[in-house]
């Protein structure tokens, strides 16, 4: 599904150059659940943004489903992204002005699904995430765990092949965190590929494989038993 080689990302500000990704290479197979770990500032989020086609690498190659996407323009990336990738963030990133239902509906709107069909799909997903009873609430009216369930619902509503999660449990207590991890595991078992950044060894254990990063490079890859 994903194959990156010699990926480089350098942030340049007025006087400092930060090499966020330094000739990074690895591969993620279809149906895998991979955890990315490493100290703060080692480039995990940068990597995830590139994998999610939100950002462009400075050099190197990025094959997504066998297609070279490094160097795609914004429109092409947006197009590929909205049909293939779902996101879960540490800070949930729900739109405050929209209800639970409307937040989850959003990706469907952008992929052009008809209203009647949207309603059915969203309700299905909300059911699955056990958040249906909150469909007309606004994000601020929900607990952190509930908000993250909505965010996961929104990430999966389009049936993406790949879910990228950046510290999805970072803002949650352990029981809510476990719940979210269980959701991701379930999705993975149904065939969705997952790449998850985490600081938690506990959460990492849900995955099949851990990629450990240091200063923008992979240091090792642990295979889980």
């Amino acid at each position, binding site marked *: 599904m994903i194959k990156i080689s010699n990926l480089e990302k350098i942030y340049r500000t007025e006087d400092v150059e930060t090499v966020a990704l330094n000739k990074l290479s690895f591969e993620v197979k279809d149906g895998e659940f991979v955890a990315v770990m490493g100290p703060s500032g080692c480039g995990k989020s940068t990597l995830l*943004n590139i994998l*999610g086609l*939100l*950002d462009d690498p400075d050099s190197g190659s990025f094959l997504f489903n066998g297609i070279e996407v490094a160097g795609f323009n*914004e*429109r092409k990336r*947006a*197009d590929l*992204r*909205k*049909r293939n990738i779902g*996101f879960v*963030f540490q800070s949930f*990133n*729900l*739109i*405050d*002005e*929209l209800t639970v239902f*409307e937040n989850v*509906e*959003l*990706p469907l*709107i*952008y*992929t052009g699904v008809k*209203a009647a069909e949207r309603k059915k799909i969203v309700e299905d997903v909300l059911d699955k995430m056990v958040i249906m009873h909150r469909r007309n609430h606004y994000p601020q009216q929900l607990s952190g765990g509930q908000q993250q369930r909505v965010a996961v619902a*929104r990430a999966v509503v389009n049936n993406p092949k790949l879910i990228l999660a950046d510290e999805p449990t970072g803002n949650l207590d352990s029981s809510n965190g476990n719940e979210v991890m269980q959701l991701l595991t379930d999705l993975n078992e149904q065939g969705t590929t997952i790449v998850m950044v985490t600081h938690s060894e506990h959460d990492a254990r849900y995955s099949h494989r851990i990629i450990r990063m240091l200063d923008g490079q992979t240091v090792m890859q642990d295979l889980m038993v």
Partner: protein
Amino acid sequence: MFKNYFTIALRNIKRHRSHSVINIAGLAIALAATIVIFLVLQHEYSYDTYHKNADRIYQVIKKDVSPTETGFQVGVPFPATRALRQDFPQVTFGELYKSFGSQLTVMKDPNTISSRRFIEESGVFFADPEIFSIFDVKWMAGSAAVLKEPGKLVLAKSIAEKYFGTWQSAMDGYLKIDNNILVQVAGIIEDVPSNSDFPFAVIPSYKTFESNQQYFNYGEQINDWGLSTSDHQVYALLPENMKAASIDANLETFSRKYYRMESATKTSHFLQPLKNIHFDTRLENNGDHISNKTSLNTLALIGVLIVLMACINFINLSTALAAKRGKEVGIRKVMGSSKTQLRTQVLFETGLIVLFAGMTAVLLAWLALPYLRYIADIQQQLTLINTGSILFLVITLVVTTILAGFYPSLILSSFQPVEAIKNKINNTRVGGLSLRRVLVVLQFAFSQLLIIATIIAVGQMNFIRTADIGFDKEAVLLLQGNNDSTSLARQAAFKSDLLKLPAVKSVSFTMDPPSSLNSWTTNFAFNNNTEDLPFSLYLKTGDEHYAGTFGMNLLAGRFYTTADSARKVVINETLMQKVGIKEPSEAIGKTIRIGAGKFREIVGVVRDFKNNSLRDGIQPTAIISYPAFYSLTAIKLKSNNLGKSGEAIQQVWDKHYPEYAAETRFLDESINEFYQQEERLSRLYKVYATLAIIISCLGLYGLVSFMAVQKNKEVGIRKVLGASVGSIVYLFSKEFTVLILIAFALAAPAGWYLMNNWLQNFTYRIDIGAWVFILAVLASVIIAWLTVGYKAISAATANPVKSLKSE
């Protein structure tokens, strides 16, 4: 998709309530102002467009070129009509004779005099049938053909109803014009639309005028090509496909054929298109007012600028708000929204706000319309909703949406999703403060410009109202009568009865008060020379009490007396100087020939008085006695307070002139009327300056409240570190003060230039002092401080712990 846009737009409007209110209020005020301006322009430009041949109708204008000046007249010599018809057989010519202040007596039958008398200030036109082949009127009874005969007349429906009860009963009824000319009603037309310069109301046939020459005092001169009066006008309807220019060329030949070419003044004619008649300030017209295209354009410009100001507010506030919306935009992008979709969304939201503003604006305009006549020269009630105004509103709303929404939509949609989500979008990224500063400067420059214009216009109007006009306009009552022979014969008795009233100081019979909008000019010669002087002489006529009644000041000599009034003349200082005399006393005993008359001896020189409005300079003027023209009685009262003596004067009038209705007015009031247009203009400036200030303050308030939110943390930290309230208020107002000063640097020269130009319309005008500009800049700084101050103080006095915690 649109439902989603709609929901989020509505919620955004609600969520940022104060911003939305500011945006909607600002836009609504601006849009209402432009709607009103549009209605005014629409009305002015609609004059006489309803005639089906409007683009083929022309007025024959007379042009007099002398070595020193060029004059334009609507009046055409009486014999010209027949000559025109002869020489231009392919053109339809129509002629009319306009009568001011005619008295009409309603008669049951031709023999009994009734007491139903009406004075028509305007709308009385002796017209030939061709006039109505040129201009469209709707015939309810009769047809244009009835005007072929003398003694027939056509009435407009409402006038017929006023005189006879119903228009049906008016048919075949009789009217007596000015107690002399008997006419029979032979046709009724529907009332002429109000947007016409041809307010046909009472229309005797032109033949009636021709067959009653003795009442119009033209005598033999009626056949003279040298005489013309603005009351006699000729109109032309060109055949299709004929160019006015080709007629104009032939009119040159025509003029050479009929006018005496040896005279110093060369007369010729040209055709003035109907569509220009309402706007040509060189000429008089028959309607209620002439519009100045420059004023209309200024008005349009003000409308556009006011909407731009409101758009600037909108842009400023929405880009300021954009930073707050970064996260939403980022998430939408992550979810797959394209730039176009985001832009559409922003434009959609803008459109919704503009739509709300538009609806509010229509309401405001509706409330404002009844007050329109105070600022525009429009007496009719305009209709707010018509095809034109709806179209205008729709177009304006769309254009405003694009103007206001386009830039914010570009800014918002260009956010990088990763940064937007991380809330890294700060102010410097959204067009930065610098753009906003430029826009605020523009806004302030415009409102200061209007403040400057208002101060100067108001100052000039005060100056005029209190200016020395060279005679005493207070406590002079004017009674408009007639100058037919019966009326003139009764004047002496009338006067002696008037003088018996205790309130009356003196009485003078005249044609015209010293200051009036009428002018009577003639050629003249000085000191027994045979050659005419190369400039026109202005005439005022009055009896021997003229100078006393109007409080004029004699510089030398005396006023003429009853005994010598026919042979003597009094001149003004300007005429004296123009003929090259330095000392008033030297002028006494010299002679003047007025027109083709005999030489008269100068017996006195009066101090200059304003002949016309203060727009014009003082003209070389002679005062002569000319009893045949005395239709006006001027009564100097002992006090300005008329009280009971008004009734007494009325009784004296009724005793001597039972068959005439008395028409009275005070001289000072009629002089003030000269400046109606300027008065309106200065009122207009006041209104629009106020609107501009309100709009820019709304914008400023919005920006400062945004700044207050943004600087929340900074203010909190500063306060924790010990900053005082004052120093924090200073933090907010410092920047805006600088911006206002920059705006002033733009507005001051522009204001000086524009208003200096405007003042050139007046021969007597104020100097633009530095204080005008100081006042303008102080006013806007103070207004801005008041606006900023409130927000700044509430930010400065907020609890710092709260603001720090929320970060």
